[in-house]
């Protein structure tokens, strides 16, 4: 590297540090989400391969309740919408509206997680635990990984509430909220795949 090139490099780098490049941060987070897709792809592939390996034990069709899954789906879909509304208020720097919509999102997400945990409890009670068969191992691995992501999103939301209380709608907080919004919408997209591949195709 010549001195001139080196200087140019240092200068660009310098600029990066000085102007908080929210766009770059959000793009970096997008790349993380894309790599998270690979994690889910692996779990979906495993699930698909083991989709009929019940080992003579209880099958998915005996346990799945579509009404229940429809409820979970509605909660997550509406939470994706309410997060969008919170994002709009945040962009307009309207703190109150943003907090209200984000709180609704949090409650919807929490209800979804509650339903999922109840479902796991119910399934285990009926004799379908992760140890029951290869199918149920794959089922719990896939659905619980999505659930863990939702849980992480909820924790992140709580942390953001504290940030907003302390600093208001600052540039930094907007970037944080944008990243969480990408994460939350992404989880809804994954859930579309889950309810289609696991539940709908599972009862067919």
């Amino acid at each position, binding site marked *: 590297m010549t001195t001139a090139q080196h200087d140019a490099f240092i200068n660009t780098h310098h600029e990066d540090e000085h102007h908080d490049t929210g766009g*770059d941060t959000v793009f970096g987070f997008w790349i993380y989400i894309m790599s998270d897709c690979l994690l889910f792809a692996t779990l979906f*592939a495993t699930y698909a391969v083991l989709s009929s390996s019940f080992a003579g034990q209880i099958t998915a069709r005996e346990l799945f309740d579509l009404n229940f899954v429809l409820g979970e789906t509605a909660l997550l879909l509406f939470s994706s919408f309410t997060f969008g509304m919170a994002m709009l208020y945040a962009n307009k720097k309207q703190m109150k509206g943003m907090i209200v919509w984000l709180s609704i999102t949090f409650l919807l997400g929490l209800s979804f997680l509650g339903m999922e945990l109840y479902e796991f409890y119910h399934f285990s009670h009926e004799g379908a635990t992760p140890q029951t068969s290869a199918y149920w191992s794959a089922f719990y691995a896939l659905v619980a990984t999505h659930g863990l992501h939702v849980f992480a999103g909820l924790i992140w939301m709580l942390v953001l509430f504290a940030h907003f209380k302390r600093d208001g709608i600052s540039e930094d907080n907007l970037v944080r909220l944008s990243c969480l*919004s990408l994460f939350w919408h992404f989880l809804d997209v994954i859930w579309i795949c889950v309810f*289609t591949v696991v539940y709908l195709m599972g009862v067919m």
Partner: protein
Amino acid sequence: MSSHDQVLNAQHSHGGAAHGSVKEYVTGLLLSIVLTALPFASLMFDLFSAPVTLVVILICAVAQIFVQLIFFLHMNTSSEQLWNTTSAVFIVLIVAILVVGSIWIIEHLNHNMLMGH
């Protein structure tokens, strides 16, 4: 435009979060509701024969994924979103190889294992 401004603009165009509108979110929500209700209804009320149901379910899922990518995640082909979209297309390719490849290979493996019986 000074070089300083150009640097800022260049950074801005690296992508990230595009802003939506209420109309966009409401449209996305309504389309998602329809695309969720249809596959659930077709199974719950036995609207179609089994192969048709499968096709309906899969088409609705893919359509809803696109609806959410466009209306909630605001993906588009504008230059600000170029790298987001490029990386997403790349990941879709990798995911397709991973999932389709796994199913394909294991199906064949299962088939060959059963030949011995």
